[in-house]
């Protein structure tokens, strides 16, 4: 929260009076029934504040729409919608509504062409349902202006559905065909066919209540034909109430016939519920005396227990001590960070512990964060800086910290550290979305994990899952298409393999050369495949670019998820490029052969936030034909990663991951091998360390 965003508040404490900054409350636009910035059913030209994430659930009888809209940049927003239409509207059938909904996905893009100024309206161009089966397809150019403090006006031109009522002309003909098996951008239809005018006004009746009136250019032809809607008037009206915390409830009157309702939840990854978190305070730094600094007599008879004391101090912060190399002026610490999402916070805590525990003559600290035996980087800092900068701006400390490759750094590993055994038992939730019969399926269960690490860089790990309740296994298996059923049989794994062994692998990790990381894994790699997997990654600590190569020879596992295999065997692997654009945008390309033997590439683009939030979209294009792939034509989806620490205000590396992907088909399916190198390695490289440095002293 910055000074600008603070709400107006008046506080009286004792005799002390404070006036809060007066700022027009950032309201954010209203959202239409389509879940995009709009009035009742029509879009507006307004964009939401950067990074706003809005979820809407709304509709009326026979027409239910759930939409997730993300303001990707200040100008571009994307929406992912899951809409259920009455069967008799979906395939326009004369007669009465059937009261059975057919669900369909759709995707929108909006571009704010011109932002609003004193004189000029905000102008947005939008593509609605740009790649679906076309039921909701529209394109529009719309202008909106905040006329007074309480009134805004909108006028727009629409094509497709938005050009279907009282059209004023037409631009070419609009094809009715769907490209491929759906899911392909229907660019041959965009801005074609009849065009009509729409518009409306919004009135802010109070801080919380907003009224809207609009003239709709959507004829709702299919709904009228299906007997679902009696379109008596083109006018719609709506009333919205805004609660604290970003939730809104609206009620609308549609075309003089239907009453619609909508719930809207708006959140923004940039605004944490509790900025900075509320986890326990770090231990204060203890400043050495000049006499103690000069004293190196401890090296003649080193006091036992320095390493133990350091291990205990690190343990207090949830860090794991791996080894210490101690000389009169320099100390090298290897440690693991299972706790902090912000790498700089883990480094700061470790540095504080070193400053408290190590003999006073030790001036140079080398911190080597380690994961699965891989030294991720060497972070070098001076102890006197830790003392001098404890109460200064974190940027000042950041400038004095060196992040370098760890290949040449000492590798102290305490004798007592390995072999190590760990286990855990945790509940899990597994979701499946967009099954045409049931929008959301859910499994609840328990996962037991165990890991044995004979040495620092080897690991034998396994997990068993047991479902307690859920309906994920009821998903009908659809093996249509000519591709081997590498993913579509997943319900059989859930029914026959419960309880089932999720994975059981032996892995070895190494750093063969500077900037190079390697992994080899053998065993039951994931629920559906087992075999051998090898990966090499090139990623210099200062580089925005990482390049990886992974090769796997795998065989499909039996449905019972025990030790047996089926006949299908394949060599799969990818050449991957990872790029951190440095502006919160991250891109990844994985090109190679997928599980079904199809070849192609996966493109991922993500908006990343420093606090760990990530909103990403991916699409996979392979040489499998749209017919072989089946519904959707190719694999694509949206992933949301919401850090536990953001929600709870406590240090925790875990996150809630929402995988909004249509049920996975067999084309473009990647092996889910564990411990891939890049996410591990990237964490303690320069960019992430710098980005999180605000938490160094936290």
């Amino acid at each position, binding site marked *: *929260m*910055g*000074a*600008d965003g*603070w709400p107006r508040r008046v*506080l009286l*404490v*004792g*005799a*002390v009076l*404070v*006036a809060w*900054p007066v*700022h027009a409350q950032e309201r954010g636009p209203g959202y239409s029934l389509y879940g995009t910035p709009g009035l009742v059913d029509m879009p507006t030209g307004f964009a939401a504040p950067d990074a706003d994430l809005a979820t809407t659930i709304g509709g009326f009888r026979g027409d239910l729409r759930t939409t997730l809209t993300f303001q990707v940049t200040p100008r571009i927003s994307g929406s992912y919608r899951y809409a259920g239409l009455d069967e008799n509207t979906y395939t326009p059938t004369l007669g009465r509504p059937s009261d059975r909904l057919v669900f369909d996905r759709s995707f929108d893009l909006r571009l704010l062409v011109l932002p609003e100024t004193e004189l000029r309206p905000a102008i947005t161009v939008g593509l609605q349902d740009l790649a679906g089966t076309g039921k909701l397809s529209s394109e529009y150019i719309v202008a909106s202006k905040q006329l007074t403090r309480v009134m805004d006006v909108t006028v727009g031109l629409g094509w497709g559905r938005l050009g279907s009522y009282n059209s004023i002309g037409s631009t070419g003909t609009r094809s009715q065909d769907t490209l491929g098996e759906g899911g392909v951008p229907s660019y041959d239809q965009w801005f074609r066919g009849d065009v009509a005018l729409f518009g409306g006004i919004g009135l802010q009746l109070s801080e919380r209540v907003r009224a809207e009136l609009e003239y709709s250019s959507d004829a709702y032809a299919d709904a009228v034909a299906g007997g679902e809607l009696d379109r008596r008037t083109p006018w719609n009206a709506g009333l919205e109430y805004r609660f604290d915390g970003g939730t809104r409830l609206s009620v609308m009157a549609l075309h003089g016939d239907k009453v619609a309702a909508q719930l809207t939840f708006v959140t*923004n*990854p*940039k605004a*944490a519920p*509790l*900025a*900075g978190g*509320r*986890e*326990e*305070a770090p*231990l*204060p*730094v203890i*400043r050495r005396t000049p006499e103690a600094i000069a004293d190196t007599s401890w090296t003649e008879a080193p006091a036992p227990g320095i390493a133990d004391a350091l291990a205990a101090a690190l*343990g207090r912060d*949830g860090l*794991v001590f791996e080894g210490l190399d101690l000389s009169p002026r320099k100390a090298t610490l290897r440690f693991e960070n*299972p*706790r902090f999402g912000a790498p700089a916070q883990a480094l700061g805590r470790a540095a504080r512990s070193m400053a408290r525990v190590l003999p006073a003559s030790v001036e140079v600290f080398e911190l080597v964060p380690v994961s699965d035996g891989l030294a991720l980087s060497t972070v070098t800092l001076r102890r006197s800086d830790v003392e001098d900068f*404890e*109460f200064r*701006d974190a*940027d000042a400390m950041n400038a004095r910290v060196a992040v370098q490759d760890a290949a040449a750094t000492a590798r102290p590993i305490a004798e007592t550290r390995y072999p190590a*055994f*760990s*286990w*855990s*038992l*945790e*509940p899990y939730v597994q979701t499946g979305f967009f099954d045409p019969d049931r929008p959301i399926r859910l499994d609840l269960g328990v996962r037991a994990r165990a890991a044995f690490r004979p040495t620092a860089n080897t690991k034998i790990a396994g997990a068993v899952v047991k479902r307690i309740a859920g309906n994920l296994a009821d998903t009908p298996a659809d093996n249509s298409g000519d591709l081997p059923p590498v993913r579509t049989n997943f319900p059989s794994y859930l029914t026959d393999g419960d309880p089932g062994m999720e994975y059981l692998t032996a892995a070895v990790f190494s750093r063969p050369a500077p900037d190079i990381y390697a992994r080899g894994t053998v065993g039951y790699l994931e629920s559906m495949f087992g075999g051998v997997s090898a990966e090499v990654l090139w990623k210099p600590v200062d580089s925005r670019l990482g390049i990886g190569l992974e090769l796997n020879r795998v065989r499909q596992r039996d449905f019972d998820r025990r030790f047996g295999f089926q006949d299908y065997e394949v060599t799969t692997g990818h050449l991957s490029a990872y790029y951190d654009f440095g502006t919160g945008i991250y891109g990844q390309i994985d090109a190679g052969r997928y599980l079904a033997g199809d070849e192609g590439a996966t493109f991922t683009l993500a908006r990343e*936030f*420093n*606090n760990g939030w990530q909103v990403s979209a991916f699409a996979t294009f392979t040489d499998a034909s749209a017919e072989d792939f089946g519904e959707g034509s190719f694999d694509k989806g949206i992933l949301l990663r919401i850090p*536990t620490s953001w929600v*709870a*205000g*406590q*240090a*925790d590396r*875990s996150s809630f991951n929402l995988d909004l992907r249509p049920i996975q088909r067999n084309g473009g399916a990647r092996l889910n091998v564990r411990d891939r190198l890049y996410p591990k390695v990237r964490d303690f490289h320069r960019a992430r360390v710098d980005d*999180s440095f*605000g*938490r160094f*002293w*936290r």
Partner: protein
Amino acid sequence: MTRKGTALLLCLLAGCGSTGDVNARRDLFLSGLEALDPRAPEPLTIAEVRSFIPTALERVEGGLVLVEQPDADRAEFFSVAGRNGSIVTYGSDSQTTIALDGPVMVATRGFGDDIMSADVDVLPELLAARQGGSYSRVLRYLDGEDRTTSIRLDCNLRPTDPANSNFIEYCGTAELEFRNVYQVDGGRVVLSVQWHGPLNGYLTINHLR
């Protein structure tokens, strides 16, 4: 239910294991449950905590402060946890800390929306000398994205009585202002009301010893 049965149920519901991260998540889950429990004992109010001042003075050696959050009616004792130059860090039982440069708050941890660091210029010296003056201050916080945000303020300190034993510090920018008070007795500040930030408002700090 037997103790083993309860432990297993807890595992299934909230997770358990041999590693710290799993258990931390379980504790988080349990503390969430506790917060929902209407029978959980209410934390002590400021008045209740104040009644323990004599006991605290008796039990704790060295510096002792009582920090009160009037907005939340909460208070806690803090004793010396570390000293770095002129700044003393005080820690509480609930693992929160407050760092004071003389009597002036320059950092906190664990309060939520913490002051990460602060530049307070000559303020501690002015208070020590019981003099008024003008200076500028910087307060730094983390925003929702964990980036450092700073507020730069122009401030002045002036006595409110002829004996120079009560001071008001006024700090402001174009967008916000606050007024801190410092009460001096026997050559040191014994009580102060200092602005912590937008979330917590003012803290009352009793500099007990």
